[in-house]
């Protein structure tokens, strides 16, 4: 039996796919939460309130100017000090929550800039048309600007999602057993890292390619009114 045959078994593949599920959950939760954080941050940046604007800018600069790995460590060690009884949670829950919080807050900063530029790319005439119908700022935003802006934001947001799928591997360094960690576990078991690492790489590739293919389909469907 070759080493490849030893490692490339249904059991190991299933194990890696389980791990990939963790990666995918981390990335999906983070893109959803990150988009919400990003929309609020973008609104703060576009709005007139100077304090909110300052906070939004500081947040974006801090997140974009420091490594995500460091941010994950901050949340992993910081959350137990911030939240009472957090340390009583199971270790895997602690890691998982810290991972999602860290990745969402990281992603929110990048999404904020995408969303802001998307909103600002909508023609001023659209604002004026909404205003002249007697709409409030929020109604114009909700009914006219955001639906159009999101169409333009979807492609870069998909790229952000793909980045998150890949960057979820960083959460392994605070103890999560996601896809990269899974490959390392198999590697250490058989004293062979190359084969499981390539298996993990293929699974990452399958996930990212699926997402980008889906995104192209969605974009095509949204083109109807162009």
């Amino acid at each position, binding site marked *: 039996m070759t080493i490849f045959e030893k490692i490339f078994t249904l059991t190991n593949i299933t194990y890696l796919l389980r791990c990939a599920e963790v990666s995918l959950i981390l990335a999906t939760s983070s893109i959803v939460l990150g988009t919400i954080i990003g929309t609020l941050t973008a609104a703060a940046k576009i709005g007139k309130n100077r304090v909110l604007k300052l906070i939004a800018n500081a947040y974006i600069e801090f997140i974009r100017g420091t490594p995500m790995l460091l941010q994950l460590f901050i949340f992993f060690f910081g959350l137990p000090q911030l939240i009472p009884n957090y340390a009583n949670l199971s270790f895997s829950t602690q890691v998982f929550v810290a991972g999602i919080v860290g990745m969402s807050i990281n992603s929110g900063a990048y999404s904020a800039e995408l969303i802001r530029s998307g909103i600002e790319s909508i023609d001023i005439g659209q604002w004026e*048309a909404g*205003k*002249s119908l*007697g709409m409030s700022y929020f109604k114009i935003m909700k*009914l006219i600007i955001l*639906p*159009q802006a999101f169409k333009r934001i979807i492609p870069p947001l998909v790229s952000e999602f793909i980045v998150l799928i890949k960057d979820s591997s960083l959460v392994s360094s605070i103890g999560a057993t996601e896809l990269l960690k899974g490959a390392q576990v198999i590697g250490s078991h058989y004293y062979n890292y190359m084969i499981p690492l390539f298996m993990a790489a293929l699974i990452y590739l399958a996930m990212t390619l699926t997402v980008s293919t889906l995104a192209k389909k969605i974009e095509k469907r949204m083109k109807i009114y*162009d």
Partner: protein
Amino acid sequence: MIKLTNIDKHFPNVQALNNVSIEIHEKEIVCLIGPSGSGKSTLLRCINGLEIPDQGKVFVNDKEIDYHNENEMQELRKTLGFVFQGFNLFPHKTVIDNITMGPIAILHQNTDQANANAMSLLARIGLVEKANEYPSKLSGGQKQRVAIARALAMNPKIMLFDEPTSALDPEMVKEVLMVMKELAKDGMTMVIVTHEIGFAREVSNKVIFMDEGSIIESGTPDEVLGNPKNERTKAFLSKVLY
């Protein structure tokens, strides 16, 4: 109905309006004419607060408008239809949804009622068959007619037109002007910024000639267009074909 007194408006490096006063009465059709940059669009935009005057007062039914009170401005804008040079239809909505958005979101009409109303407006502008098209599928003239229907759906007391035919291909000007003439016939109060002097002469009961941010001459179409007294009005009209 609407009275603007001593309006000043500055833009960086330009004085767009210089001590302008006008009054618009019910069922009046007022045309604002003048060279580009004369301030006529700015004046129109001051009426519904798309521009906020630096100085001067605006009264609607003898009540002064507070431009910095957002709620009051929204209430005012509900009663004023505005038609833009560039249409500004909502590209992500079909024609009928463009028309019903205001009535549903602002006037809280139910969908059936708003749709029925929109269809009868589409019938009026002759575009029933385009109800479910997106604006990108329409010609310029059709877009502008839909934009007029969208404004009318709010049941405005006054319609404001900002160069409604200036962005159109020549062969589409007429269909838009026809719709406006119909409105005039129905007794709508209208303020129209236009370069269509012939149209102004035909439908308006008051013509205002503006230049460099001031009103130079105003009166009936016959007075201002037929027998202008001011040299600048004469010079402008002599350069315009109609």
